[in-house]
């Protein structure tokens, strides 16, 4: 019971392809450094500075917060240090593998010595936490051993016995059982993770060495390294859809509803993104941004990543470490061109670019692109009563903001007589539809031309920090300071404060975050979304569009099941599973071409949905 919070805080990352990601349990520093070694070691180019940090500094997602290298034996420390200095990827992999193996074996040995005391449980916990680093590799490449070792860990825990409470309920330790289970694990690790010599390999993984040597074919599910956060931002941004504010129901707009589903679907991506359950909405929460999104090695800081690196689509790897801050999609129909560098005038073409080139998806159909664009064109800005339709401040703005508005519209010599408003044109949603070179990117070679970047809108920017294309400036005040310094504007401190107040006034928005309370729960929101997505079957079934139905079912059914885990009304969870089963049945019948059965299953789904709706929170 007391562990309820921890159930949420310590859950494991969802491994299936769905959009529900939950926080991952902390890693022990050595296990984390090993997993980071695998992840970074498989990137091209290998980020050696990050690899060094992984071992030499406390990293995110670990507990206790000390560096991995600080707790190593002299030999292990030397092996890691030498490998890092040599910048030899395989050498580091071998040293890291040995570090974890030595750690598990020595903690197991210590637990055996301490059997009958509380220290034995502590050592066993530490050994198990280190074993986690190898667990997915063993499960994928040697499932028989995975089960055998899993039972050995269970036997170890049970063999610890219990002191009870001052003798009451005491169970003596089982020395023989413990020794046998310990030996089973240690022997396997010695044979598979402490070989005399490691086989050469192209790709680093946690697979056991015997599987590599025997040429076993295996597929380890894609995992992201410790420190990753791909769960939705907290608090969740509020979504403003034009049709909804106008009183229409998405269920009556099937193209929009299908696009909404695609926006939440990992199925349109390929490779690791799809395997990890990453969808458009993972980075663009509710049309806005996910300021918490972070993947070590891909993100320089939270709220963005390098989208053209080797991880998601090696074909699109530009070999440059160029983190991009995730832009908000609020009001996206008004903010062309698209891409931070404004390379696409068409939202449709840019969407195709994200699916195919950035996230390795198959070529989307015209229908899919139509639907995605139809949905995204409904994204509006958060209303902001501090500005009028022409972008001028209203009476609700502060005196400081009004003074800042004058400065914003004042030409500066340092900007060739232009004002801030020259590019961030108030009557055009504070952008000009052009790209400019502000000196924020270096030229690709001496004498080359630096990338120009699109003028971003200033609407609702209070909720999208950090700023600039690479997220290099943390606050609006720092942006003002940067312009003042970079373009020699000569602003006094009070003027900079006024200009910041102006930006905050035009960047504001009403009710920026989704509020969850009582029955208006996180699950209720997901329930309404997912059943609306499913309602597009009313259109797709008569069209006998089995491809779109398959995609819809593959997206919605797993998400229904996964989202049930966050229900407030846990007692009704099994009903959600039953409903998801009905949706699967629609998909199966559709794939079989049995349209009558598909229709019947869909009717059963709708009937059950109506029946259980009251309990869905």
């Amino acid at each position, binding site marked *: 019971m007391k562990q309820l919070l921890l159930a949420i805080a310590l859950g494991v990352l969802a491994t299936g392809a769905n959009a529900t990601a939950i926080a991952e349990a902390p890693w022990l520093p050595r296990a984390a450094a090993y997993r980071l070694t695998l992840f970074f070691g498989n990137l091209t180019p290998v980020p050696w500075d990050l690899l060094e940090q992984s071992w030499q500094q406390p990293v995110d997602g670990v507990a206790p917060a000390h560096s991995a290298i600080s707790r190593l034996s002299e030999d292990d420390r030397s092996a890691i240090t030498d490998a890092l200095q040599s910048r030899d990827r395989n050498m580091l992999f071998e040293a890291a593998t040995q570090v974890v193996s030595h750690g598990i074996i020595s903690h197991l040995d210590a637990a055996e010595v301490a059997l009958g005391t509380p220290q034995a449980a502590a050592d066993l916990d530490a050994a198990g936490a280190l074993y986690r680093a190898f667990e997915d590799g063993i499960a994928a490449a040697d499932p028989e051993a995975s089960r055998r070792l899993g039972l050995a860990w269970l036997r170890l825990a049970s063999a610890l016995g219990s002191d009870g409470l001052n003798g009451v309920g005491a169970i003596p330790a089982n020395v023989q059982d413990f020794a046998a289970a310990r030996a089973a694990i240690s022997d396997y690790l010695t044979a598979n993770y402490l070989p005399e010599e490691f086989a050469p390999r192209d790709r680093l993984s946690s697979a056991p060495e015997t599987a590599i040597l025997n040429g076993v074919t295996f597929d380890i599910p894609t995992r992201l390294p410790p420190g990753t956060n791909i769960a939705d931002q907290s608090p969740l941004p509020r979504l403003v859809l034009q049709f909804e504010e106008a009183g229409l129901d998405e269920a009556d707009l099937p193209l929009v509803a299908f696009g909404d589903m695609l926006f939440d679907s990992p199925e349109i991506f390929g490779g690791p993104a799809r395997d990890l359950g990453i969808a458009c909405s993972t980075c663009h929460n509710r049309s806005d941004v996910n300021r918490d999104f972070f993947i070590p090695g891909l993100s320089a800081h939270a709220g963005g990543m390098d989208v053209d690196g080797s991880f998601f689509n090696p074909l699109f790897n530009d070999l440059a470490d160029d983190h991009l801050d995730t832009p908000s999609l609020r009001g996206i129909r008004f903010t062309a061109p698209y891409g931070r560098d404004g390379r696409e005038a068409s939202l449709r073409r840019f969407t195709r670019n994200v699916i195919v080139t950035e996230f390795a998806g198959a070529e989307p159909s015209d229908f899919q692109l139509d639907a995605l664009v139809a949905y995204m064109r409904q994204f509006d800005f958060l209303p902001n009563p501090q500005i009028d339709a022409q972008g001028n401040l209203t009476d609700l703005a502060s005196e400081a903001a009004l003074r800042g508005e004058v400065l914003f519209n004042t030409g500066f010599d340092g900007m060739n007589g232009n004002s801030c408003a020259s590019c961030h044109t108030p009557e055009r949603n504070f952008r000009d539809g052009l790209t400019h070179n502000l000196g924020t990117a270096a030229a690709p070679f001496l004498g080359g031309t630096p990338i120009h970047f699109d003028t971003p809108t200033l609407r609702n920017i209070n909720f999208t920090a950090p700023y600039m294309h690479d997220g290099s400036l943390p606050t609006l005040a720092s942006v003002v300071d940067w312009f003042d310094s970079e373009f020699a504007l000569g602003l006094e401190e009070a003027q900079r404060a006024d200009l910041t107040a102006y930006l905050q006034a035009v960047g504001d928005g009403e009710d920026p975050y989704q509020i969850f309370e009582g029955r208006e729960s996180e699950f209720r929101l997901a329930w309404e979304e997912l059943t609306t997505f499913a309602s597009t079957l009313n259109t797709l079934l008569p069209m006998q569009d089995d491809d779109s139905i398959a995609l819809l079912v593959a997206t919605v059914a797993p998400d229904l099941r996964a989202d*049930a885990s966050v229900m407030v009304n846990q007692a009704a969870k099994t009903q959600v599973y039953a409903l998801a089963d009905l949706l699967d049945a629609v998909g199966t019948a559709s794939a079989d071409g049995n349209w009558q059965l598909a229709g019947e299953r869909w009717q059963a789904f709708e009937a059950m949905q109506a029946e259980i709706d009251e309990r869905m929170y």
Partner: protein
Amino acid sequence: MLTRRLVLAGLTAAAFGLAAMPALAQSADPLRLAFIPQENPEKLLGDVEVIIGWLSDRLEMPVEGFVTFDHAAAVEALRNGDADISFMGALPFVLAEDQIGAVPLLSEVYRGAPSYAGRIFVRRDSGIESLADLRGRDIAFADPISESGYLYPLDLFVRDGLIADAEDARNFFGNSFFAGGYQQAMQAMANGLVDAAGASQYADLFLSPEQQADVMVLGESEQIPSHAVIARPDLDPDLQARFVEVMLSLNEAENRPMLAYLFGPDGYAPADPAAYEGVRELARRYGYLR
């Protein structure tokens, strides 16, 4: 002075004092709270630091917190005065009540109730449909000193006439394990290492969302009083009352975020000593109490 036995291994510097209130610290004995680790002792250490700061501020007195190895160490700390107050499950509480006269102050509230149940979980695809089907099969429980993770789920088999007592369970099950916690027991079941798990009503939340959809409840016990906050019997009654008052203020909206640092209940309710009678009776029946 805390003995080594009382403090979690490797965390001997884990006694947090409140440096921000030197005047009070000099003029009053601190209130000492014992916390019992669950799945992640390191996270708990950070939580303890936050919550004792908050409590110290509200109680206007110094508060110290430390993490013990287990329930036994917490009870020992209460007995010898190293701790004034401890967080504790219902079964260890009734044992502490019996052994040192500990008194319950507060009960955790989950889903609107200061109680919960123990359950037997199996995989949906296991073909197991009743408790009787578990004859000769393997089961994992959480811990022998656990009401929802052992005694109450086990008692379901007694009530169904499948076993006579805990000893007889050896003859009924194939293998019976104590996995070390709810999460370990549930993972062992979900991963197919054992056929069933005996754990808290909410223990399926320890599984991934996909695993949760793959398990089902085979049996559920009667309601058990939820985990408690207990005090040593000779703790000043006025201080007990103040502590209860402050802890109940966690139910107010502005204080609710602090609950996340206290094992994450939905709130607290004043403890009702009579509510533990069922636990006492069960503990007597299984030989835990005289």
